[in-house]
């Protein structure tokens, strides 16, 4: 047995690794079953106590329950990230491909679009719909055919066409970046879990929103101009007093009306006296929104899992009643740090009315301050905006100004002094990346990023469920058929092949989990197809062994030469399938890629099962002198 030790170790390691990688998937399945059981019960309770509740409110309530369950068990989330991901076609959701509408962009940034201009634009758009040439190129060509210089609409009078063309192309490029940031921001706020927003080519953005049932609403998120606002951040005293009021309202709600809390305890001194549990009960708001007692500001720190809950609480009528109606609470767009592995967001209290909106911004540029060599953003405004800006900044020196895009705070810099002339400099960015993001955000408020949907696919959750069920059923039936046939035809050798087939499927799933790959419906089809093709290698080997036995060789010699002689045919035939798998992966998108992936992984796994595992079993059986039947 000694000579097999190494092979045995490898096989056991492969099996162990696969099981280890698949465990989170199983665990996640169990977790989700548990959660959905609780949610079902809860939804029954809610509808019983309040039969008129609208579908919307019900789903909001349920999401809250779900969030709190997940918050109580942080392992749920980590398990989920390690589980095999299901594609949109299995879990439901939508995939949208957006293209920046260059024609519209050109029209919006043109200085004085006249009739000729509009004619040319619509001509260019029509042509672009059928060719691969870019709208800017076609537009420039038609203009030059008509003898119109581009400087009539863009840039300054002395600029030649080629310079303007390259600038317009940069603008079109930037528009994609802007559109992506606007969409990302909105999707984050909408609360879609695991959204994916990717750039495809030069002008396209692919957005994948798993589990979105209300596609119309989601589609709205993706289109429309963004709103950039400058709002003053309230001073700490004011903010704390509002927060204290909110805290009390929530605590009273917790205590079920008969509040035992003395009215004059403040957040600061109660921290020292109360145990954690009591504190949570008496100060529900401060439990979710933590204030740095030594900090200069009263911005609250909120963990990602509390964000949605807090948002809903803040919008509830009794809390709204104690918030002065000229202020509002806004979250930071991006996490500002991490604690206990969870992202931390900022919660700002700002004036409801904006001081200015983004329309006045003419340009923004991320750059390096030559004096301090830190990343900064330079912002320019038009003359109208500059006048207002000088007045606003002059009146609010040493206050903070929040820069808010579609309701999310991107930055809240301090106003160091009156800014006249319309040129401002924003400091305090940690790195160039952050500065670039702010540049995009500032531009997003001023420049349009018109997009149109050019492809859209959505699958409802019920169809997804049906597909999973059909896939599972086919896998099991396919496996049984093939295994049964192998056992009938090759007897004991067939049993070995069938057992190896189980490991093939196990390896495929394990590798999928390990690579964090996505399983799609065609992907499941790939697994079923692999089951049918995996035994091909066994068939080739067994037929060979039979031939060798016929020539009068011993079992041991036949097994040896059977395996080695079948090798070349097995490898050749599998490599061709693998090659098409690679091409398919390149060509396909989403579901088709999932198929190509399982097909390729399946080939690797089945070769391992047939050439390593099955061979080992045969070798052991031969050395132990067991009888091998091969039909």
């Amino acid at each position: 047995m000694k000579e097999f030790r190494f092979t045995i170790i490898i096989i056991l390691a492969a099996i162990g690794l696969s099981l280890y990688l698949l465990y989170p998937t199983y665990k996640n399945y169990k977790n989700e079953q548990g959660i959905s059981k609780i949610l079902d019960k809860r939804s029954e309770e809610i509808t019983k106590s309040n039969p008129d509740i609208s579908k919307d409110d019900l789903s909001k309530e349920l999401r809250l329950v779900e969030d709190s369950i997940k918050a109580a068990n942080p392992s749920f989330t980590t398990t989920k990230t390690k589980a095999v991901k299901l594609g949109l076609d299995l879990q439901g959701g939508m995939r949208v491909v957006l293209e920046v509408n260059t024609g519209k962009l050109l029209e919006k940034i043109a200085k004085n679009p006249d009739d000729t201009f509009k004619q040319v634009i619509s001509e260019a758009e029509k042509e672009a719909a059928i060719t691969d040439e870019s709208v800017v190129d076609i537009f420039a060509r038609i203009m030059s055919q008509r003898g119109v210089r581009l400087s009539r609409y863009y840039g300054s009078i002395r600029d030649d066409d080629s310079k303007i063309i390259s600038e317009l192309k940069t603008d079109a490029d930037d528009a994609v970046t802007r559109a992506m940031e606007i969409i990302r921001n909105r999707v984050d706020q909408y609360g879609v879990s695991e959204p994916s927003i990717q750039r495809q080519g030069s002008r396209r953005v692919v957005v994948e929103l798993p589990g979105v049932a209300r596609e119309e609403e989601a589609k709205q998120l993706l289109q429309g101009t963004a709103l950039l606002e400058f709002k003053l951040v309230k001073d700490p005293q004011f903010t704390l007093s509002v927060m204290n009021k909110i805290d009390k309202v929530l605590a009273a709600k917790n205590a079920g009306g008969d509040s035992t809390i003395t009215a004059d305890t403040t957040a600061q001194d109660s921290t020292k006296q109360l145990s954690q549990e009591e504190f949570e009960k008496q100060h529900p708001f401060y439990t979710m929104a933590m204030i740095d007692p030594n900090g200069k500001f009263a911005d609250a720190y909120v963990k990602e899992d509390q964000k949605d809950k807090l948002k809903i609480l803040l919008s509830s009528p009794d809390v709204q009643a104690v918030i002065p109606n000229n202020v509002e609470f806004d979250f930071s767009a991006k996490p500002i740090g991490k604690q206990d592995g969870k992202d931390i967001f900022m919660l700002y209290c700002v004036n409801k009315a904006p001081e200015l909106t983004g329309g006045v911004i003419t340009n923004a540029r991320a750059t390096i301050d030559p004096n301090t060599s830190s990343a900064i953003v330079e912002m320019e405004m038009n003359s109208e905006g500059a006048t207002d800006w000088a007045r606003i900044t002059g009146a609010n020196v040493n206050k903070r100004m929040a820069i808010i895009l579609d309701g999310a705070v991107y930055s809240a810099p301090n106003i160091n002094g009156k800014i006249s002339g319309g040129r401002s400099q924003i400091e305090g960015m940690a790195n160039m990346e952050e500065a670039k993001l702010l540049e995009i955000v500032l531009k997003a408020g001023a420049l349009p990023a018109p997009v149109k949907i050019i492809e859209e696919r959505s699958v409802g959750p019920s169809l997804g469920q049906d597909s999973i069920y059909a896939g599972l059923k086919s896998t099991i039936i396919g496996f049984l058929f093939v295994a049964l046939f192998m056992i009938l035809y090759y007897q004991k050798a067939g049993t070995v092949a069938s057992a190896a087939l189980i490991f093939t499927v196990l390896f495929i799933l394990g590798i999928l989990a390990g690579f964090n790959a996505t399983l799609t419906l065609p992907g499941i089809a790939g697994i079923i197809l692999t089951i049918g093709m995996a035994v091909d290698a066994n068939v080739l080997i067994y037929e060979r062994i039979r031939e060798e036995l016929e020539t009068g060789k011993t079992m041991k010699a036949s097994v040896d030469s059977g395996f080695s002689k079948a090798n070349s045919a097995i490898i050749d035939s599998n490599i061709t399938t693998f090659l098409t798998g690679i091409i398919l992966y390149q060509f396909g998108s989403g579901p088709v890629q999932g198929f190509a992936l399982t097909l390729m992984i399946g080939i690797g796994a089945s070769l391992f099962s047939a050439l390593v595992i099955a061979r080992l079993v045969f070798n052991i059986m031969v050395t132990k002198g067991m009888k091998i039947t091969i039909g």
Partner: protein
Amino acid sequence: MRLFENIHIDWLGKRKIFYAVSAIMFLIGVVNVALRGFQFGIDFKGGSEIVLQFDNAVDIAQVRNYVENIGLGSIEIKTFGGETGVMVRTELQNIPADIYPRVVNNIETAVHDIYPGIPLRVVDSTESSITYELPNADTTNSLVSKLFAQGYQTGKVSEEPDNRQMVVNVGIAEWVKENLKTKMADNPFKVIKEDHVGPKVGKELKQDAVVAIIFSLIAILVYLAFRFKFIFAFGAVLALFHDVLITLGLYAALYGVIPGLNLEIDLTVVAAFLTLVGYSVNDTVIVFDRVRENMKIHKTMPLFDLLNMSINRTMSRTILTGGTTLMATIVLLIFGGEVLRAFSFTLFFGVIIGTYSSIFVASALVLEYASKSKKKVQF
């Protein structure tokens, strides 16, 4: 159990028969492609497709009747899955110009039901949306959400607080849903699948698909030429062409012939064809691998006998490997659900034709080539 043991059949002697069989299959395909053409799914044609799941069984003729009257011209209506599923599909990208006023009229009626007599000013109208200006910001906001709740796809033009403009989408899918909702009020439905593919995307996907298939044929030719002599690689790839073309022809021939089998060429079908390209060459490789081996053993045997012997010796494994894969595709065809049906069918038929060609066609082609060039074939 043993099948095809010690068979000594002169396959190549009968090759004229198989040429005839292949030629007939091929001709049937060509005639059908020429007369009926291919049915492409919306992946390649572009258009809109919605799948509705009704609460109760639905009469497809009734749905067709309703939908045909809403002015979208010939709309394709099919059952999807069981008897409660309906697929509605059209190649149209936008609402046709003659229907547009009706759609707009519907929207305006809905607006006036909510706010009787409210002044509406159209500020912009495109093929797929219409933009209204309303008297003030508050009514705009409430109208946007109220219309949205009724199933219209509405939005504010800008998020500015004093925004008074509202945009309403007038897409095909919305129009169909809206009409069915009112006409089939007693049998409510939900949308379980909705696809929309722009014309440019469809064209690109078609190009990509053709390129992918050509690339995979070239890749296989190169690989086999590297592993075998060129003439064998050539024979194998010709056999592959044979498989792909006959299967394609079958698509044209069988479209709409078998009820419940929806043979449209979409992305997954292309994936199936590519898999076919990779897989159906397998059996051919097994035969050629044996030819190569036998050439070394029987140095003086004529190619004719060598090929016959190799085919006979590998017959059982050719049938068995094809058979197990066929089993898997049959299971997929029966249990894999509506979404995978055309995909499974392609593989099912492709595996059969692939096995046939590696027995009867590939070696014969090698033989023809060798006797034409009169050279001795060597490995």
